């Protein structure tokens, strides 16, 4: 039995599709598929980009609720199949669910005709994880994390740590956020959504582009293949600077990265590449860039951001980006940061703009969110 906590199985549904191999191939080729969504509910005469899940024929006849659970359950079923779990292993699989919107997408349609729907009908944050347990006949605990954009990244940390401490044998970690008007109009109200394509760290970046998606991981001491990724360590720190932005100096994000590396037993020089949170917003990129320069003393390893491919999948991004990044490396490359053209001297971060060959390595992955939440993970697939 290994001390390592492996990603034994995975599946993802995102704007690039629901077949991980094809999604990774699209990333290598630099393909994206993004929709223009008009802001009709506010009678606004403009639209904003949104990375929506590809439409499938059956969607049209389904209720929003049925669609919500279809995407969720099919993604989880694929992850379970990918891990090759036996029925008794599924039965004892604790669920770690992370989301920003939770069940809001299910209830939103009803608001067109009714009010007070949520407080009258919502079954609580824990309900989606509970439904997962019922659907897959799981007889174990469910944990739901709602820490904004770090929600499912926190799920990974806690699941891995509970396995490492021997409290559980393996875990299902899910990140899921479906399109919600609350998020779309809410982020637009904050002037955070970019009118142009997302271009993290670029001098002319204008903001985020939101995406919807679902990712599911099976974490276990057992791996499926020799080059499977394993978790080395993670950290969660609260930056109390402001509820919406982190301290631009990057101190607390740097502290989070340092703690994650310390818990992983890794020095900065051992990090082969960084998957940045890289939202494309002015403040996030500035803060993250400053933090990385503090930690790596202005010699940041090759760095990329994945949001230009699939959008900012908010609470789901922890799991989804972990899958896409690790699967890209396993297939031989670091994905490029689409859209980056010109270095911003205020940040001094230059992400990779073309896929870079790599097979194995030790990597830092960053996730940040509202409420001062900072999460960093260190993962590896070195033998």
């Amino acid at each position, binding site marked *: 039995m290994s001390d390592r906590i492996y990603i034994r199985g995975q599946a993802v549904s995102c704007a690039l599709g629901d077949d991980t191999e094809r999604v990774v191939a699209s990333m290598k080729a630099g393909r994206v598929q993004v929709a223009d969504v008009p802001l009709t*509910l506010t009678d606004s005469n403009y639209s904003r980009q949104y990375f929506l899940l590809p439409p499938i024929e059956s969607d049209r006849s389904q209720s929003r609720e049925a669609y919500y659970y279809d995407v969720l359950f099919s993604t989880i079923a694929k992850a379970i199949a990918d891990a090759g779990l036996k029925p008794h292993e599924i039965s004892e699989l604790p669920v770690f669910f992370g989301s920003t919107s939770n069940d809001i997408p299910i209830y939103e349609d009803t608001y067109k005709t009714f009010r007070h729907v949520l407080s009258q009908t919502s079954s609580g*944050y824990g309900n989606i994880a509970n439904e997962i347990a019922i659907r897959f006949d799981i007889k174990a605990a469910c944990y*739901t994390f*709602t820490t904004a954009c770090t929600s499912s990244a926190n799920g990974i940390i806690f699941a891995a740590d509970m396995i*490492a401490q021997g409290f559980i044998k393996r875990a299902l970690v899910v990140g899921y956020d479906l399109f919600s008007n609350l998020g779309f109009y809410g982020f637009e109200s904050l002037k955070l959504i970019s009118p142009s394509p997302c271009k993290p760290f670029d001098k002319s970046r204008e903001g985020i582009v939101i995406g919807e998606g679902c990712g599911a991981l099976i974490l276990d001491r057992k791996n499926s293949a020799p080059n499977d990724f394993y978790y080395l360590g993670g950290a969660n720190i*609260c930056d109390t600077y402001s509820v919406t932005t982190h301290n631009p100096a990057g101190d607390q994000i740097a*502290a989070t990265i340092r703690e994650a590396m310390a818990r992983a037993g890794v020095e900065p020089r051992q990090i082969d590449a960084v998957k940045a949170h890289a939202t494309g917003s002015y403040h996030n990129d500035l803060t993250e860039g400053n933090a990385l320069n503090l930690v790596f003393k202005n010699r940041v390893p090759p760095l990329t951001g994945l949001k230009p491919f699939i959008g900012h999948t908010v609470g789901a991004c922890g799991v989804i980006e972990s899958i896409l990044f690790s699967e890209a490396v396993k297939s031989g490359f670091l994905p490029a940061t689409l859209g980056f053209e010109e270095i911003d001297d205020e940040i001094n971060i230059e992400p990779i703009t073309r896929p870079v060959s790599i097979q194995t390595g030790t990597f830092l992955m960053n996730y940040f969110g*509202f409420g001062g939440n900072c999460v960093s993970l260190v993962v590896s697939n070195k033998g």
Partner: protein
Amino acid sequence: MYIHNYSIFVNPPVDDIKIYKQEISRYTDVKFRRANKFVLLSMVGASRCAHRQNIRTNTAVYLTTENGNLGDTETVLDQIFHKHEFPMPYNFINTMSNTASFYVAQSFDILGRNLIVSSKQLSFERGLELLRSDLAAGAVEEALIGGVDEVCFSKSQFEAKFNRPHDDFQMVEGSCWLLIKAQKRGALGKISEIQSFGSLAQTENWLKCQKLKRQPILSCGMLIDLGQKESLGQAVPHEAEFDYIGEYGYFDSATACGVSGFLDRYDKACLVHINKDFRGQFVVLVVEKY
């Protein structure tokens, strides 16, 4: 998991959140101009628990809740769907319930792990499990952990959910917290067991094997029915029953109130608290008060 302090705040539902602001102002100079009820409720309980406790910078915050913020979410959806306006930015930000755990951290100037955790009917218990793991891993040395929920039920909702008469219960808003440390020195008690089981029979078998130092006080969560309560009572001989829901009222993360209420009422005693969820998962907490 040593308990160094606790707090209990329960209140009948209020529309005017001024009384929560007044209560918080007894403990902190921080002003919460745009905070919603859930934030203020969280702050009231956390402030009481942290008061005069010399809270360290690396303290973690685990805010457990069944429903989180509901008010601002309703407001934002109303702004979008009925007023056809963009939501007010602070309303939108407050839809994310971790603003509450953020303000708790900011008020006490603490930078440790910060979480909002939920688990249908077992939110506080699952939060304690995560904290136990963090303590074991050395990721956390001390933490504030609370159970916070607004009142959200209509009579029909409550009865549909629990199959029990609404009028038998007093509905309250609650915010009950524990200050937990890895360090024993100065503790007033400890959480000695958190055990999960897939059935009543497994729970009873485990309880029968326990050699507790003294006959415990027994308390049960909302979904334990009378028959199960009787059966569990036979499995664990007990000195008395503690009906904290009857005493303090019901809110969805009431287990936190059960533990804090026990610490408040009893000395040199042991609590066995048993709760279950709708899937029939049972969790037993054993709490000692020195």
